[in-house]
């Protein structure tokens, strides 16, 4: 099956802990993204990588760090989570370029207590 896969589906943790989310795509794309969807369902870009190179880095707190081992994998680490980090984190992939349809994974829902 060709798609975008994310693990875990859900994660509950306490303030100050570190969490990591994984994303893998089997679509053969060269660009991957992390988006955050907040409690009001607003979706915003966080990062994008092209062939392991960071190409978009929006205004995101420094406790967030993306990690790419190859063009098919893009993980997201959050050091010392805060309550406002509670959200759904969506991974996506596409070919690089202005005219490139993006495909999304099912998301990881993070709850910070």
């Amino acid at each position, binding site marked *: 099956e060709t798609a975008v896969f994310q693990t875990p589906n859900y994660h509950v943790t306490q303030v100050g802990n570190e969490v990591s989310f994984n994303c893998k795509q089997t679509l053969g794309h060269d660009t991957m993204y992390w988006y955050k969807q907040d409690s009001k369902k*607003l979706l*915003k870009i966080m990062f994008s990588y092209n062939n392991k190179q960071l190409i978009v880095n929006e205004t995101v707190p420094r406790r967030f760090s993306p990690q790419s081992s190859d063009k098919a994998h893009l993980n997201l680490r959050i050091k010392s989570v805060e309550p406002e980090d509670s959200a759904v984190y969506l991974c996506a992939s596409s070919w690089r370029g202005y*005219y490139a*349809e*993006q*495909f999304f994974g099912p998301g990881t829902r993070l709850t910070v207590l």
Partner: protein
Amino acid sequence: GDQVEQSPSALSLHEGTGSALRCNFTTTMRAVQWFQQNSRGSLINLFYLASGTKENGRLKSTFNSKESYSTLHIRDAQLEDSGTYFCAANNNAGAKLTFGGGTRLTVRP
């Protein structure tokens, strides 16, 4: 920054009826995508347009880059069409998508 203004924010339809969703862009966009977010939270790709009109079953979408808007028409709405619909567009500066605020659609029997 770039903004995508989506309307309406909520919409209620009876089965068999139809309506249109609209997104206005504050800057020139190169392409637009429309998604349905289902009850599990997955974003399902409905349309990708760089220009013109596309149709798929009961859905039709148009993108007018010059006039900075896109529309999604739903006809003969079914219960399973309920969910939140998002438009998203990318601009001249790069491939990141800027999302509209979403339209929560409820289809009633």
